[in-house]
């Protein structure tokens, strides 16, 4: 599962927050030959484990680590784990509760709710297209989905299981034991296999094939006139494309856009990881694909609508000493703001799917 509030808030860190090792990281991945795993990834829009072989329109091949190749069995196992509340201490919270397919793989609330109703301090980021992200969590403290997957399980205000407790619990479920043996060839389940399985499933949670993707293929009528105007603004006057760039609409970087910086003790964001003052208040650029479904918005979930988001950018963000230079007053008209919202709501929304409905869980 992707970064959730409490882990993101840095309340507890059960993962090693090791800095990203550039060269090691690169060599561990199949760079340049990123795999499209036939039969395992893809589909016409949001597709999952049982999806056909084709990537959604508009998306590049998925990078897959060499030591965790996609297999149908592993993806199916990961999907079960993702939806299984037994991975939490009191069987009340699964990955899917905070990253709900029906809510844009977020949870529709400002913050996530963990075991015993505990609330974190950051919004649940969407898992959509997390496969392409170079960092996970709002502050990017995990480099890979495998690195990220166990964090919320062990976080006491999220799923609240130590990793030994979790593996013991999973090992006690016969159906899982059998699957882990088949998928990984292990009799003793370790956190590493759990992480690999969940990450493999998450690599199938993709958003593409939107009206925008069809428009780019030459289908001019795929988007309304208002959405087309919004698209032009998005990549022009409104400056959105300076950060929300590329097929996944993110530069994979960290920016201070001023959200929360007018509060008494603002969340320092990426600075906590990088130790660079210039990263103060900076958070990872999220994808805006299927953004209409994953509100509320921003790392603190403080904006309920895309109109509020556009207004924030239109005023040039919230002033603070670390505000990104990409933020400046946009002087958008009311019509332009409406067009921008239209582009995001209409142009970047994928067709609905049931591919990520909850699976039957093993006994």
């Amino acid at each position, binding site marked *: 599962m992707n970064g959730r509030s409490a882990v993101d808030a840095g309340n507890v860190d059960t993962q090693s927050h090791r800095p990203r090792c550039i060269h090691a990281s690169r060599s561990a991945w199949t760079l340049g030959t990123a795999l499209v795993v036939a039969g395992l990834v893809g589909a016409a829009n949001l597709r999952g484990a049982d999806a056909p072989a084709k990537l959604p329109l508009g998306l590049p091949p998925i990078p897959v680590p060499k030591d965790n190749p996609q297999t149908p069995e592993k993806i199916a196992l990961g999907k079960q784990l993702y939806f299984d509340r037994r991975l939490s201490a009191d069987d009340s919270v699964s990955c899917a509760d905070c990253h709900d397919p029906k809510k844009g793989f977020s949870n529709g609330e400002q913050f996530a709710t963990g075991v015993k109703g505990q609330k974190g301090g950051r919004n649940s980021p969407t898992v959509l297209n997390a496969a392409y992200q170079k960092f996970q969590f709002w502050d990017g403290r995990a480099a890979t989905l495998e690195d990220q997957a166990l964090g919320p399980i062990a976080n006491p205000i999220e799923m609240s299981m130590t990793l030994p407790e979790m593996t013991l619990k999973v090992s006690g479920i016969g159906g899982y034991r059998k699957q882990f043996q088949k998928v990984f060839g292990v009799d003793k389940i370790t956190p590493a296999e759990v992480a690999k399985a969940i990450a493999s499933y998450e690599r199938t949670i993709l958003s593409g094939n939107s009206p925008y993707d069809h428009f780019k293929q030459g289908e001019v009528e795929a988007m309304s006139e208002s959405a087309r105007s919004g698209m032009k603004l998005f990549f022009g006057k*409104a400056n959105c*494309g300076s950060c929300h*760039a590329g*097929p996944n609409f993110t530069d994979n*970087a960290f920016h201070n856009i001023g959200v929360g910086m007018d509060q008494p003790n603002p969340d320092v964001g990426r600075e906590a990881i990088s130790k660079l*003052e210039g990263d103060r208040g900076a958070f990872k650029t999220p994808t805006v694909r299927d953004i209409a479904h994953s509100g509320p918005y921003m790392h603190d979930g403080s904006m309920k609508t895309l109109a509020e988001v556009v207004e924030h950018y239109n005023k040039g963000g919230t002033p603070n000493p*670390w505000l990104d230079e990409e933020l400046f007053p946009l002087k958008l008209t009311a019509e332009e703001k409406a067009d921008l919202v239209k582009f995001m709501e209409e142009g970047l929304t994928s067709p609905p799917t049931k591919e990520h409905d909850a699976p039957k869980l093993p006994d």
Partner: protein
Amino acid sequence: MFRRFLPQAGALLLAALSVAPASAEVKVSTVLDGLDNPSGVAIHAKTGHLFVATHPAVLRVAPGNPAKKFVEVDAFKTDIYGKGPKYEIGPLGVALLGEDHLIVGDGSLADAAELVRVFKIGATPLEKPTAADNAEFKLGPIGPGDESAKGEGNFYAIAVGPKAFYVTSNGDDTKGWILKCEIKDGKPGKLVPFIATKPLVNTDAPVAITFSPDGKQLVVGQMGEVNMASDSQLSFYNPEDGKLLKNHAAGLNDIAGLAYSPKTGKLYAVDYSWVDAKNGGLFRLDVTAEGVKAEKIVSLDKPTALVFDKEGALYITLFGTAAEGSKGPAGKLVKIAPEL
């Protein structure tokens, strides 16, 4: 005749630096230290004088033992680069236009106000520096409009061809413009946006720029995000029509400068490496059809620009890191003997 000769209090001798060469043969020597955030370097083919963009002046350096430093252009304003660490910057990129003109890309003003200036220069240092405002030609500014939402600025580097020169710019981050200025009868024309790099390579910030040895390709180092590792790109464009010919991940953090060795034809880059300065340095880039292999030649402390002289000696500017308790500028101009 009075000349603005500024003897260096520090290490003017070509003393070996405490750097970590990847190859035992590579020796890095300090030409000048105490420089204030040097960010660009160019060499005058005839005299061998180096022009170094620093904050807040462009210096002329006569290499030798000791090297001599003169102020060529002064009175630039000051802008701040970065959000922590923050650096005071002035002029950024420098290049020679023939033997008697110096092109200077500005970084001292706000975006949409910055200029590319062209100064008349002589074979010898000036008695009195030329003020920045007294450039023979002022090109720009490029203000807000359809081509640039916020206007252009931070003119990092300049590549000069027979018909035009090209300037990397950092205003509108949805575009990542390379600007072009045609040269007619030895005079610069209008500075205009030419290549929008961002939509082509999905990476921010064209910074380094040079010509391929045959002059047929513009070679551009796309720095990427300063808080992202390994996102720099190496791109090749047709200078005539601006078409992207090829683009590769460079395997570097923040390409700041590019240059071809005149002796070997090999391509070299300096990587500033904002995320971890220890990883910065000089790299040889071996470009194949499959991609780019970056081979580290030597570690350097926040390198920003490089230039070869005609014998193949390599000069590199470094922002450097101030020693604890030190108040003076930490920047340097260093040299690697002709061996690359």
